[in-house]
């Protein structure tokens, strides 16, 4: 069949890599690699804080959120400004951490992280940022595992969710433009 051969998701093959390779990928596209690597770390830690493992259910780490955010940040189907907002939001969160506690978000205690997220979510930028991170956490929780998250269908099992069939199982099957 004829398909338009676009470049979308040509990088998807690497999307199951861990966060650090995501930082390296970003560093190639920007003039401030150190800054972006830090933003990625802040973004991941914000996700860990927003959806931690608990008695109620799995957390962002269990879901392999880093792999999923790696996919999100490289998915050309998501508008570029939306993807960059995630990192921009992380950089603003880091700034807020220094303003409020004099140290990096990564160095904050759990309670401090929680307080800071509540504080920033009262501002429009903070609410937008937290909303986006939560949105992608829920996608990671309930997407087909081929996207790199929902490891061993942990999210589906937790919610006894029937995802329907057939499910995509290869990268090729979710690369709709090839």
């Amino acid at each position: 069949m004829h398909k338009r051969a676009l470049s979308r998701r040509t990088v998807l093959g690497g999307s199951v890599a861990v966060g650090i390779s995501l930082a390296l990928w970003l560093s190639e596209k920007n003039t401030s690699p150190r800054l972006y690597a830090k933003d990625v770390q802040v973004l991941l830690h914000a996700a860990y804080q927003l959806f931690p493992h608990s008695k109620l259910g799995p957390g962002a780490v269990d879901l392999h959120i880093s792999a999923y955010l790696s996919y999100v940040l490289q998915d050309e189907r998501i508008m570029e400004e939306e993807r960059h907002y995630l990192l921009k939001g992380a950089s603003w969160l880091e700034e807020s951490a220094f303003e409020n506690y004099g140290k990096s978000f990564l160095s904050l205690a759990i309670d401090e992280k929680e307080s800071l997220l509540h504080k920033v979510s009262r501002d429009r930028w903070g609410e937008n940022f937290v909303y986006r991170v939560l949105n992608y956490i829920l996608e990671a929780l309930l997407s087909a595992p081929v996207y790199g998250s929902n490891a061993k269908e942990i999210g589906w099992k937790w919610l006894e969710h029937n995802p329907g069939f057939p499910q995509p199982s290869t990268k090729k099957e979710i690369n709709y433009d090839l």
Partner: protein
Amino acid sequence: MIYDICIVGSGAGAGPVAYELSKAGYKVLILEKGGWYEREEFFKDEIGVCRRSSFTPRLDEEQHVIEEKEEGKWSATPTSASGWDFWNGNIVGGSSNFMSGYFHRLKPKDFRLKSEYLKIEGSNIVDWPIGYEELEPYYAKVESIVGISGKVEPHPFLEPRSTPDFPYPPTHEHIISSWFDKSCQKQGVHALRTPRAILPYSVGERRGCEYAGYCGSYGCSSGAKGSAREALLHTALKTGNCTIEANAFVRRLLSEDGRVSAAEYVDKDDKVQLARAKIFVLAAQAIESSRLLLNSANDAFPHGLANNSGQVGKNLIFSAGGAGTGAFYYEDFNEDEVLALKSIGPFVNRSLQEWYELPESKEKGGTIDFLFEHPNAVSRAKRAMYEGKLVWGDKLKAKILHHFKARRIFTFEVFCDWTPNDDCYVSLDETIKDRYGMRVAKVRIGAHQHDLRVGEILAAKAEEMLREMGAREISSSISPSPPSNLQAGGCRFGDDPASSVLNKECRAHELSNLYVSDGSFMPTGGSVPFTWTIYANSFRVADAILAVLKKKI
């Protein structure tokens, strides 16, 4: 090569023409702007299909501009900014690939809305130039060729039929359907089995429904859903007379001497090509069909092709109405009932047309379809994100758990007439162009207050039914915002060239070889989803084209 027929688009308006003309031995070319996917390439992939809209264009490359009234003034917002997507499946087979397949015929009175009901101030309602009896044989044809399953049950608004029953029995039904029936019986209303464009068992190369539980929004991986691709284009291709060129975006129709001479399109390699044919059929879905005509202006048609009447794009309609929900809590049922209630796959297949005409006011009413909340998990989980403000951590988890494990949400959809009016139409945006350099459609979406009032009456009836069934947390919302997937009008058919674009055979009044066979022709939409009517009318148009071609031979 000069084809006999060139069709722009490949969905419900295109499929019947391609099917009939290629079977009759005519050479058919279909130009489809999107890609070509077959059933083995469809997965229940919520991220790729629903959240990334992989089967529609990127909004930063191709979009619409939507005009809404805000504080008394019209305000235009590009969909790339709002995210309100007006594309509906741009692949071979069009949006019929992604429909739920709730199929209802129009009723005889729907063809004579102006004559049958009191005038609504501020409306542009006209009678159709044909009657129900002219379309009925084609409704029947769709039942057998596209494949509609159901069961005819007598009710006050049952439309006349030329066949006693549907050719296929209903698909398997969920236990809640029987609860619905009991409640209807108590209320003294007729529970109707909703006809579905879904095969209950295998027919030819199409497999029967496999009850995956995810029908609307997804391409069918068994072939049971009656998309134009599965039900019609495959057969057309087998004749050897039909060629489908995917990734071919038609940017304008060229004309000379009152005839369309060529379709100018951008092919998959981004090269501009001309397709020549004796007859051209436009079926790009209502908004895009009007847009193409408007973008095809030339010296003879300075305001757009076939638009010297100024009618192209006018009287766009959608389906008016809204939706509502009720929750069935598992704690209210015994273990067996809970197990049955949780099952994914079998269909609800129930609707009400008891108030197709409102008994008190004798106004036109509508249809209420009942179904379960769409099982897409991310969109369901996202509803837990707010509680006045954003919540996260265990609070969010508890809410998600409640939504997924404590209850099942039953929903209803209200379909009533979208009253055609001067504030609902397609034009071209002055500045925004798509990636092909063509001006995008600007769509003014003014709804008539009358429709909201009728919608509220129907929603109240549906809520009563949910209450009778034992649902909790019942609510509904009737909105002036149109459902972007249910669009029609813009190129009305009619007898008067001054007030319509097409004649009764859906041929342009002003161009002797141009037909429009999607939902654009509809002056009014009935109080049902449009797809069955679009299919039926396209079969009717195919017969009209065949008659012309045979005469010429």
